[in-house]
Every structure is written in C-alpha cells, then in structure tokens.
C-alpha cells in the first residue's frame, strides 16, 4: 500500500465515518456510499497481502 492509498483510507474513514455530525440528513445522505467502503475494504486487504508476513 503506497502513501497515497493509505492516505485515501484515512480520508474515507475520517470524513464518512467520523467527525461532528450536525444533522441526521448527513447519515441518510451517506447511507448509500457502500461502494466507497468496498473500496476501503479492498485497499486494506491489499495492504495485508503486500506487507511482509511474520516468519515462523
């Protein structure tokens, strides 16, 4: 995972999943962003495959 992808994961998580919520409309408006989360999940899985595994 390069820095840009790592940064994207944090941007997605921070802005869509965290932060001050000012009204319920925001939650509803973001309820259909599953595709964004699928991408986040794919990035994390990629990171898991790329990073070296602990040797026994």
């Amino acid at each position, binding site marked *: 995972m390069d820095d840009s992808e790592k940064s994207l994961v944090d941007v997605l998580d921070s802005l869509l999943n965290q*932060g001050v919520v*000012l009204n319920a409309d925001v939650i509803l408006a973001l309820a259909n962003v599953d595709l964004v989360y699928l991408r986040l999940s794919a990035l994390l899985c990629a990171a898991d495959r790329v990073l070296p595994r602990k040797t026994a």
Partner: protein
Amino acid sequence: MALYVLALTDTPLSAWTVGAHRLESLQHDGVHVVFERRAASPAVTDTELREQHALVLAIAARTRAILPARFGSLIEKRQLTALLRRHEADVRAALEQVRDRVQMTVRVTGSAAPSPSAPVVSGALSGRDYLERARLKSSPPLPRQAQRVLSAVQPYVVSERREPGAGRLLGTIYHLVDDSQLADYRKAVGKRVPGVIVSGPWPPFAFSPQLW
C-alpha cells in the same frame, strides 16, 4: 445559501481562501464554526473527499483545538445556532479534550487471535452470558503483534476509541495523543509490524461529538 460546515474550533478566524474555497466563520458563545457557503452538499467522490480533507488540514493549521465535521454537513444558519445552543457543553468539553492533541489511527488486519471460549450453557442463555457472547463477537481479540503495539503506545495515549472491523479488517483503534508526546508515540510504534497499519497525525475526527 446554506452553510457547509467544515469544522468547529475555539479560535476566531478571519475569512480566507484555500484554493477555490472561500472559508468563513461565525461565532456562537465562544464556539467558532468554519464553513463555506454552498447551495448543496458535494457529491461523494474521491476528489471532493480529498479536497475537504485538505480544507480541514488548512483549518487545523490555524487553531489549537478543532472538531472536524462529517462530510455533507450542510445546514441552515438558524438550525446551526439552535444546535450549538443545545449542545454547548458537549462542544466545549470536546474542544477542551482535543486542544493541542492529534489523532493517531491503528488498523489491524488479518485473522483474529483465538477467541477465549464463550461460556457453554445448555438451555436459555442468561443475560450475562448473552452479553459476553455479543462482546466477543463484536470485538474479537486482536493478534498478539497488534496487542504488543497497542501496549507499547499506551503510555502516550490520552484517550482511545475502538471500532470493530469486518472481514480482514479486525478493528480500528483511534488514539488521542498530545502534540508533545507524538514523537514518543511514533518511537513506541517502532518498525512496521505485519497486519498493523499506523497512520497520523490527523485532526481528531474520531473524538468529535454527535450533535443531532
């Protein structure tokens, strides 16, 4: 036009421009709301998300205490004022908590550590057993190498929030760290550990209150 809220802070900020964005602020009882005037929320795209994140970083660079808003926080001024009046104490407490602090994020991926077995009960579960099973299911034990990293940084953590993961993402742990302790926190993380992704420092997104 409505106000597209980017962050709350305790610092008075004059209007300024970041790229194509004109940022303004309004004050309510010592809480300053940084916003941009917009007719509608931006679409959820990589570009818009990255732009908003850059704006939050620009605001964070000008203040010691910031509570970033969630993407899509478009609100009328009257509603915003009412909201701040209703949650004044929560906002003040949150600003106090994050002052001169940053967020570090620890993501743990891989396979969960073997779970301590839930109590075996024949017949109906007691309330306590049910809650214990639910707890183990929602936050399975993290792998040993992740637990080692979390223990190492613990002395530098002011506050912690954990969110369970899904699939290969086992969980996300958000740490609030003093600016002055950041170097020590990073040193404690040490070398890259497989299955543990540490990022930051970030504005304290995960330590922002829900106000609606």
